[in-house]
């Protein structure tokens, strides 16, 4: 069984330190092409041009939070189907269910392990298309 290939990832997160760690985790460890945005608005502006295969969204961001960003993304024709993974601290089961209802494919718990983040994402990707 073949999956669509996963190369380009848009990472949306307001914390600069976590951005830096994630860039290493995804680019250096995972070998992905990564574009990082600091908030939902930025993400909406750059998403069409970058054309990501997958979007990672922090849940709690000032201004426009993860879930609202996701809803806005679904209004854009190019990203109606793009798989989105939420990232959040303290993953509760009912929250996961809620996020999935919002069409997120999965939730990754923060803090993530930078060494295994890419593997986790690939696993989710395969499960999603498997």
């Amino acid at each position, binding site marked *: 069984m073949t999956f669509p290939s996963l190369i380009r990832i848009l990472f949306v997160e307001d914390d600069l330190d976590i951005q830096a760690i994630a860039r*290493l985790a995804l680019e250096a*460890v995972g070998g992905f092409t990564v574009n990082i945005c600091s908030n939902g608005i930025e993400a909406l502006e750059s998403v069409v041009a970058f054309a990501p295969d997958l979007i990672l969204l922090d849940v709690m961001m000032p201004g426009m939070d993860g879930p609202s960003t996701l809803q806005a993304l679904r209004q854009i024709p190019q990203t109606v189907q793009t798989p989105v993974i939420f990232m959040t601290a303290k993953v509760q089961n009912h929250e996961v269910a809620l996020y999935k209802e919002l069409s997120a494919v999965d939730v990754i718990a923060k803090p993530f392990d930078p060494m295994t983040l890419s593997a986790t994402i690939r696993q989710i990707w395969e499960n999603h298309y498997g």
Partner: protein
Amino acid sequence: MAEGGSLETPNIREQFLSLCQAYTQELPQRIASIEKIWQHVLEETDGQEALVHLHHLIHKLAGSGATFGFTSLGDIAHALESFIGSIIDQGKPLTVEQHQQIDTLIIALGEVAIDCSPTTAAFPVQPQASPRLPQSELSERLIFLVEDDFDQAQAMMLQVNYFGYTVRVFSQLAGLREAVATTPPAAILMDIMFFEGGLAGIEAIAAIQQERRQHFPAAKPIPVLFMSVRDDLVARIQSVRARGEAYFTKPIDVGQLIDKLDMLVSHHAPEPYRVLIVEDDSTLAAYYALSLQQAGILSVVVTDSMQVMSPLIEFKPDLILMDVYMTGCNGLELAAVIRQQEAYISIPITFLSAETNLDKQMDAMSMGGDDFLTKPIHPQHLIAAVRTRVQRSRVLRSFMVRDSLTGLFNHTKIKEQLSIEVMRSDRDGTGFSFAMLDIDNFKRVNDVYGHLAGDRVIKSLSRLLKQRLRKTDFIGRYGGEEFAVILPGTDSLTALQVLEEIRVGFSQVRQQFGGTEFFVTFSCGIAAFPQFRDTARLNDAADRALYRAKHEGRNKILLAED
């Protein structure tokens, strides 16, 4: 698919480390800006907006702190984040308690930001063990925690760490069997539900124990404590069949967990019995000593009856075995002299003599002897006689000198010990430190959570003291929420370092009661010998330092001033 680990190159590791260093350097600034915003919250009439800002900053700190492996920082920040979040949700002005709680947590943040170092798998750093005092039997304190939920594992590791255990976390079942085979831990904390199945944890343990039985038939099974959200009979029965020692349902009460761990992993092997032999015939004395030694009983021999006092203080025997007829002074007189000192009223004295006259034996008893053994005595009888007497005397003694709630020394005993320590240090020219600790705002814990919660807090501090201090230190419950500690051979600065570590640790312990969590701190004053030369001065100086620490805002340790 490639595993994350195999992609790991030194270069990437270095980059992570340098990011981590940069983050570490910036931490104090972050804490400072959090403190600043907190001031804004307090100063402004409508602090709501500033509070939202504060909440956001702390949320970020919780996320980044945990990402960079500052587990305790991340933990405290997370607690603070949810606490402030709930206050924002209520939309009411801050109460005094809320104010104080936030204050405490922000102070704690500042402290761990200075103290702690990253501890994630990505940057493996040994979890902090108490570094200043020599710590023995590290492997005996090694605990394997098998838990696939990262957050839960981190939180629990931190809590169990505070009580002096070294925790190694396994996020999956793979690799556990091999690890147990190479370094068998003192106990395993085992989640039950894993990705492999709803009872996978129990099955894995059953396999491990069976393998151990095959390879080492004589070895005892490793104690396993199961923990799960499952509370059904099937899981419980399976866990019993896998010889689980305990079963905890989540959320786990850490206090109970530690109690159980302490019980299973008895890090203090029972102290060998100690016997002081007073016998002027050195050959005979050596023969007794040898007989007792073969039964694992320690002994010290005194052949000159005039020299009996110093081994009494130094060696701290459980029992005195004394010849009745000695040159210099006879055993009966000596017993009477020993009994005149309050500290030795309860020590069992057993006479050894060729005397078979019952009247004379009774006479010996009236002088303070507890028992009379007739020479010559068979070594087995001697051992049996000594054993039963020491056993009983230890039990009785523990009622007399121990506090019933904590098992620490009681007020009388710790004061007595203080005077013994003064005498000894005076003679040896060594120093020691005496510390008085008092739990902060203890009345409030009792008022808000009830007396049972108060007792739990007292027990948790006593447990922490027992585990972090050396076996040779003396820990007492002075009364109520007050504790006293004697650290022999320790100057005041070293004592400060040691207790400071305990203070920080205690402030981070999640006190759990009736489904709620809260944090408690203590203040402490330290006075050292010979700067303060007698028990009254030591007591007074430590007490005044403690009072100053309270006065300066609590959660603080101060050294006594002249």
